[in-house]
């Protein structure tokens, strides 16, 4: 290519975008902000965790209390994610595929956990299941422990993470409409066959996306869980709760060691989210053509 052909392009580029200096300043501001508020904290977490060497790090993580917290967190996440997967699917299905009274109300209700402070979410369960709560005395007389036990933590986590799957699926299912389902039904498929062969494959990336975000929040939830947990050591402390307790007891290495696991989870989530988003975009664009 000759220079003549290149120069008009570069002139137009200068006209079309901001001057180089302005561009540089904007990018620099964004980078500094990201470094100070995102990258630096992340680095500090890992630096603190390893400040006394790998041995101390491993010891911190293999402490019985830490192991118990990790186990509890995984268990609660598994419960709340799988239940929210079902609830989210049902809610999204109802909203996207049927018309009924109060649909808009239901949609805003699904968002409620996002707009309520997590502490309030926890308190709601204390009011319901606590010793002075509505169902507390009855549950106590039947020897069922909800509050300050795994069920309470799971309930609070389910409440807080409920919107993720539904939110990921509603727009996707609305866009896809009901025609493919109708086609499947008219071809003789049963309701279950239609769901597993037509609906689910069409929304699988959306489902995974919702599950991923829901899981990240479930493992990281602090406020709501803190209210209902009771902080019984080795029993009802999840990882985020244990981080705070250890920190308050000046056990920085142990505290940051567990925090580093949560940070690692965040990084993995981020990568997985990016991959899933790519798949979701592909699903919406026509293949080939």
């Amino acid at each position, binding site marked *: 290519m000759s220079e003549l052909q290149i120069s008009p392009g570069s002139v137009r580029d200068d006209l079309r975008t901001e001057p180089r200096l302005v561009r540089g300043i904007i990018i620099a501001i964004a980078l500094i902000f990201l470094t100070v508020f995102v990258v630096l904290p992340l680095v500090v977490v890992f630096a603190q965790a390893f400040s006394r060497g790998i041995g101390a790090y491993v010891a911190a993580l293999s402490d019985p209390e830490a192991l118990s917290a990790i186990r509890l967190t995984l268990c609660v996440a598994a419960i709340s994610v799988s239940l929210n997967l079902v609830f989210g699917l049902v809610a999204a299905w109802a909203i996207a595929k049927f018309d009924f009274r109060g649909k808009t109300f239901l949609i805003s209700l699904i968002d409620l956990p996002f707009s309520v402070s997590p502490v309030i979410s926890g308190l709601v369960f204390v009011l319901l299941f606590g010793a002075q709560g509505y169902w507390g005395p009855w549950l106590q007389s039947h020897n069922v422990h909800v509050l300050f036990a795994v069920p309470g933590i799971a309930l609070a986590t389910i409440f807080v993470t409920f919107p993720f799957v539904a939110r990921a699926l509603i727009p996707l299912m609305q866009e896809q409409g009901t025609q493919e389902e109708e086609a499947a*039904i*008219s*071809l003789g498929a049963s309701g279950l066959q239609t769901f597993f062969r037509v609906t689910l494959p*069409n929304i699988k990336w959306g489902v995974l996306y919702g599950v991923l975000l829901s899981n990240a929040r479930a493992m990281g939830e602090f406020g709501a869980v803190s209210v209902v947990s009771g902080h019984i050591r080795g029993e009802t402390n999840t990882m985020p709760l244990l981080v705070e307790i250890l920190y308050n007891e000046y056990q920085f290495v142990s505290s940051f060691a567990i925090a580093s696991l949560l940070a690692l989870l965040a990084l993995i989530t981020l990568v997985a989210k990016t991959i899933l988003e790519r798949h979701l975009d592909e699903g919406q664009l026509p*293949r080939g053509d």
Partner: protein
Amino acid sequence: MNGIWTKGNFRVAIEVKNIVKRFGAFAALDGVDLKAANGELLALLGPSGSGKTTLLRIIAGLDWPDAGEVSFDGENALAHGAGERHVGFVFQHYALFRHMTVFENVAFGLRVQPRAIRKDETGIRRRVKELLDLVQLDWLADRYPSQLSGGQRQRIALARALAIEPRILLLDEPFGALDAKVRKELRQWLRSLHQEINVTSIFVTHDQEEALEVANRVVVMDKGRIEQIGTPGDVYDNPATAFVHSFIGESIVLPVEVCDGCVRLGGRALNIAANGLASGPSKLFVRRHDMQVGPAGSGALEGAVRHVRTFGPIQRAEVALSGGESVIEIDAPRDRELKAGDIVGLQPRRYRIFAATE
């Protein structure tokens, strides 16, 4: 190819009685009666909102009527859900399963059959191959729906619907989403396919040309009611109502007054019979090409030619009628030269008069 259709596939007629369907206060269908004979290819023709798609969906079992009966071959169809009616339904936007290949789309109806009657894998493969051959798209078996053109998607949707050996075939605006050229080709193709497979079929369209060209009989609908059922020739030549006359073919419509058997336009008596219509405000319908052009004073109407356009075998003239404000367009053969400014006499060769309802 005929072999796959005759086996275990007994012929069914469709009967629809007094179907009513409301969406809130809006009556989508308001007492519809319809019968389709075995092997017929029926068109439901009407403007959008006339209830034709709703009727089709009710026959398929995708919607339920508020009142009325649907029966296939004398057997109550409303007792069965969509999946048990053995109806092949082709959706307007095809509704192909986007995550399945063309092959799997066509095979779907075979794969979801109860285990007792389901074909084995070889049987399914053979059947899908037959269907893809039938729609002449066997070379697309491994593609995904998004990689097909509109016309190809349409034919795959049809093959998929035919896979279950449907008792009846229903098509919702089968050519609606296609461009004009593909449309024409598919029309002829659908008609010959119907002859080949001979399944009782109903298709919905808002395009009169499509209905008249493809169907054995045409059902003209408006505002949730059936206006007329007849052969394409019938509904064109003998429209039963003013709506049918104005909806099918292009018509000249003139507001007239019927009084004691005579017809007046703007106070002037026209030299045509009222055909027994009761006195009152009425509408005179004449096809453009049924208006005979003669010298001034030769017909029931008279007017001044304002503009002439010539194309193909006809010339289309815009004529301002004297004694009224009406301007009409007529189609005249080219043997008689017309030009702007001519005063001509016009005589309707064929016409119909309907009482003005609104």
